[in-house]
């Protein structure tokens, strides 16, 4: 039926359900007419590839070094920076580049999706309508440059409805927050997770600015004040946020992203040489009924 490990199939056949829900979340489920039927999960271990973060070759390769051929081909964001000084020297970084690390994004997407699909398979085996309280994690494994993707949640059946014919709906939410989402006229469709990864190879101006030479001839400061914006890095930072947002939007297909969570991780190899990774998670939800706004809530002062 699936590529689930044998142990998983055995666990899911057993009678009692286990669930990651807290007591209040469990109570809320029952309130919503959702019956928890079991804890479901999926795993996937991906090898990052030689060039990705932590990968064996990523640290020392430079696009203009002897090994040369790393310059990414046409796919993805690339922006070049040219030295304005007209100096030729081995120490002077005449050229720099921001580029999208598409392989990192691909590894992440594949790992997450595989783990997620396996979780859905387990849920389907249980005859579940949906999975609530989803949690996802990515665990780097030792020095081998591998990541373990883990996605899990509590599978639920909607009481008094016929058996499901399509894939389960999923959401990071659980408990009262999920109940309010339903009451507000939304139905959860799926969890959304997107990642963007950009590498900054600093050129001379960026390197000097990051080492604190603002205001010197090297940084072309025409203004008398010594504060200069570090343009190359700002561009990369802005790009990483825009990109991850547009990747998430592409998955929405007209639905809304609710309760989003954006995490940024920056890694500096040396002054100005950075890697910026952005992960955006959220709940894809859809309106199923018109909704009259609530009246303005009555404020109270609590005597504790």
């Amino acid at each position, binding site marked *: 039926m699936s590529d689930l490990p044998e142990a998983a199939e055995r666990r899911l056949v057993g009678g009692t359900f286990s669930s990651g829900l*807290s007591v*209040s979340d469990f109570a809320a489920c029952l309130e919503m007419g959702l019956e928890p039927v079991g804890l479901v999960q999926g795993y996937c271990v991906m090898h990052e590839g030689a060039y990705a973060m932590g990968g064996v070759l990523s640290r020392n390769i430079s696009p203009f070094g002897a090994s040369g051929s790393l310059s990414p081909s046409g796919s993805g964001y690339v922006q070049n920076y040219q030295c304005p000084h007209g100096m030729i020297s081995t120490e002077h970084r005449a050229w720099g580049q921001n580029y999208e690390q598409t392989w990192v994004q691909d590894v992440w997407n594949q790992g997450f999706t595989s783990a997620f699909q396996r979780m859905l398979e387990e849920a389907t085996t249980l005859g579940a309508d949906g999975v609530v309280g989803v949690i996802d994690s990515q665990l780097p494994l030792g020095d081998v440059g591998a990541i373990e993707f883990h996605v899990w949640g509590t599978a639920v059946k909607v009481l008094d409805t016929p058996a499901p014919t399509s894939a389960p709906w999923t959401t990071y939410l659980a408990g*009262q927050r999920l109940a309010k989402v339903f009451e507000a006229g939304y139905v959860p469709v799926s969890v959304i997770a997107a990642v963007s990864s950009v590498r900054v190879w600093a050129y001379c101006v960026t390197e000097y600015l990051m080492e604190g030479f603002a205001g010197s001839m090297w940084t072309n400061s025409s203004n008398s004040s010594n504060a200069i914006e570090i343009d190359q890095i700002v561009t990369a930072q802005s790009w990483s946020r825009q990109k991850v947002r547009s990747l998430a939007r592409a998955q929405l297909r007209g639905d809304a992203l609710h309760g989003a969570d954006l995490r940024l991780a920056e890694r500096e190899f040396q002054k100005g040489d950075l890697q910026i990774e952005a992960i955006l998670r959220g709940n894809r939800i859809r309106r199923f009924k018109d909704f009259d706004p609530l009246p303005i809530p009555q*404020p*109270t*002062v*609590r*005597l504790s």
Partner: protein
Amino acid sequence: MSDVTNDLPEATGRRLEELEKGLFTSDLSVNEFLLIKEVGFHPVGFVMGSSIYHTGIQTRKWGQSLELTKLTEAMYNARELAMTRMEEEASELGADGVVGVRLDVNYYEWGKDAAEFIAVGTAVKAEDGVSRLNKLGKPFTSDLSGQDFWTLLQTGYFPQGLVMGTCVYHIAHRGIGQTLGTTGQNVELPNFTQALYEARELAMTRMQDEATQLGATGIVGVRLEEKSHQWGSHTIEFLSLGTAVSKTSDEVTLAKPTTIITLDN
């Protein structure tokens, strides 16, 4: 209490001028801001006062538990200075009082025997124009939050001032003979008990004296803090803080509160 006529640094002047012209600043949350307005007060400006004080330790006798009076004075004066400057800023703004007062101590690496004492709060003014200055003719100060200020006023009481008492106490080191004698037994350490008891009492009594000076009928929100600052574990400052209040009206507008149980965690 030091009687200092305006000794605020020059930089303060410009900032207060802008506030006097009508801009208000406040570190109150939106909730507190709305509750202050409910009881007829308006925030005027964020006010602060600070002083850097030498807090070096005087010589002390190892075998005795006693108050280090010079240090007590220093701790008290340092905070008084900070509070007074904060009150001066409030007076400058024509405020009736300061709410949400916070007292903080900052230590800096370049000042091992010194500390910076800071008092900050939001100065407020009554919208009906009736003065609310306290018995000493100064703006009232209080460490009550916006919520507590609102609740207090419902009871017909009004804050008069933040009162404090402090006591720096040195606790005798027990002799080696004594230490060995009681090892392994569950014994109360009478030295410590007595010392801590006395120190706390001193701090609280001094705080109450301040309240009496303000003609207050009571003190609310009393709390006792213990700090070793940078002196090591045998020397402790006991600081007792509270807000002195007086009854100003017999009218109690407290409606019967509704009881609720919230379903969130």
